[in-house]
């Protein structure tokens, strides 16, 4: 970590709840800016928030534990299907639906954790891909639960707290999602600084050393996967509640690869990086891919190559380094 970011973090640490306050303020501010820029397209912003939750969940396992996975969308998509089925079965309360998504996410997280974190390196990566493809094939086959390739439609949640109806302009959906994102983000800021979160970072950097100080690695990774599943599950639930449909694309490999790209562009192992990576990538993609998806692929490819070669720790880290250089130069003058 550069001297700048270290001193900035230390300055922040000296205020109680400084990071948390900053988190709530930033998300509120970003939400306001988004509302002003895209007043006609709140459905897009709502979707963006739900994907951001998936990127945050990926950051927990990839950024903080060093797990290489290309199957994270499974946690998100299965929760979305669970919520969709619950809604169609007659459960209308959005908060209750969120809890169902949370539960389904935790369950899927624990299952994939048991499978994926057993090994490291290539076997881990391939298990994550294979598990994702297996679930995708099942979702396609079990069309009574998932609607197959047509998707699951007809999800109509009741008003939030019985007061705020989900309107056709997605205003309620947007504000609801924004509040959920703020709550999750702030809880995660605390969680990653907890002793458990710090130990996970230790596992990422040197798992042998963690074992030497008497901690077991495998169970902790599974627990972290459970937490990650909870976050992804909330994202999936939000997607099902606010969009009203769940499709096969929400479990698939493409979604998993896409969120990994977002995370790495922003900076893995840093919740702020995950947040900004997700927002920047999606807004950028919203414009470019609507004109021509192939230009979009060329640009993303080029961007990925440049990031890996020049700022391997992500854009947020690159910006921090640039900033600290700027400060030093000013101090010298």
């Amino acid at each position, binding site marked *: 970590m550069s001297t700048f970011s270290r001193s900035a973090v230390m300055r922040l640490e000296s205020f109680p709840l400084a990071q948390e306050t900053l988190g709530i303020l930033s998300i509120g501010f970003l939400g306001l800016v988004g509302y002003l820029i895209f007043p006609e397209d709140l459905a897009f912003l709502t979707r963006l928030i739900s994907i951001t939750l998936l990127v945050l969940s990926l950051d927990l396992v990839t950024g903080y534990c060093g797990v290489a996975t290309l199957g994270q969308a499974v946690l998100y998509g299965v929760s979305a299907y669970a919520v969709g089925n619950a809604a169609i079965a007659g459960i209308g309360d959005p908060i209750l639906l969120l809890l169902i998504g949370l539960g389904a996410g935790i369950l899927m997280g624990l299952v994939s954790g048991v499978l994926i974190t057993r090994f490291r390196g*290539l076997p881990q990566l391939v298990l994550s*891909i*294979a598990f994702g493809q297996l679930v*995708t094939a099942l979702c396609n086959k079990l069309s009574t639960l998932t609607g197959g390739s047509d998707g699951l439609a007809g999800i109509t949640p009741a008003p939030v707290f019985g007061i705020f109806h989900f309107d056709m302009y997605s205003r309620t959906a947007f504000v609801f999602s924004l509040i959920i994102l703020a709550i999750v983000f702030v809880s995660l800021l605390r969680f990653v600084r907890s002793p458990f979160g710090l130990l996970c970072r230790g596992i990422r950097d040197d798992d042998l050393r963690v074992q030497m100080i008497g901690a077991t690695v495998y169970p902790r990774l599974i627990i972290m996967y459970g937490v990650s599943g909870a976050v992804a599950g909330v994202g999936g639930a939000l997607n099902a509640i606010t969009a009203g449909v769940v499709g096969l694309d929400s479990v698939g490999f493409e979604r998993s690869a896409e969120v990994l790209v977002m995370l790495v562009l922003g900076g893995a192992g840093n919740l702020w990086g995950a947040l900004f990576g997700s927002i920047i990538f999606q807004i950028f993609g919203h414009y470019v891919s609507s004109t021509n998806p192939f230009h979009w*692929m060329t640009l993303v*490819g*080029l*961007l*990925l190559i440049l990031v890996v070669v020049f700022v391997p720790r992500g854009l947020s880290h690159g910006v921090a380094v640039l900033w600290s250089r700027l400060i030093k130069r000013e101090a010298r003058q």
Partner: protein
Amino acid sequence: MQTILSIAFDGLAYGMVLFIISIGLSIMMGLMRVVNLAHGAFAMIGGYLASYAMRDLGMNYAIAIIAAVIGTIIISIPFEILLYRRIYRKSDALTQLLLTIGITFFIIGIANFILGPTLKPIPLPAALSGPMDIGFRMVPTHRIFVIVCGVIAALALWFLIDRTEFGVRLRASVDNSDMADSLGIRTEWIYAATFALAVGLGAFGGVVGAELMPIEPFYALRYMVTFLVVVSVGGAGSITGAISASLLLGLADTTGKYLAPEYGEFFFYLVVILVVFLFPRGLFGRAH
């Protein structure tokens, strides 16, 4: 009985296509320690070049294959010099993954920009396009050609890596590149040559297998996972592993498609999970 024989034959042909393409990737992953997700993109470039050579330049099939392989290697050189050299051995899997996904996206975008989004068929010569009677049913001659190509590629590679001076130098460079350097082996040249070999094999497989895996802009993305899976099931760097994994997975996939098509790729990936969980290094993987 008829069905079982048909599954066996089609599975064998499909497995051989998987083998020809993935053996190049297996060499890169096993010997050079690079998880090269862009391997399918190079196979796709080979297919495009062969299609162009035959349909627009009027070359015949055999010459078009050679031209496509050489052309793909030439196209891959700047990628090797500018990007791959950074990630040989020293990088973690995630960095390699992201860089090579980036390369794949880039190649897909450029290929579409130059050639457009349509399917590019590779016309077959008359000798390969008809059916042939193999006892229990008529099969396309081309599939037999593919199987023969697979066997030849396997034997040639085994000879190259196990029995030649180049193979010795390659294995020395991989096992301990510093020592190989001090012995006067120019490791960077060995690596570059191996990279070219891997890319060339990919391109060859892309052309020969185009009947079963048609060349189109999303080719690189569509089969990327399949090739990676074949390599890890077989064990990276092992020719025996690549053959057995290709045939096993080719059969699993074909069986699934014949008997339970509505399950999609479920059985294919079920086999993958079982094998990788039981043999994390792959069936014939080498202990590092």
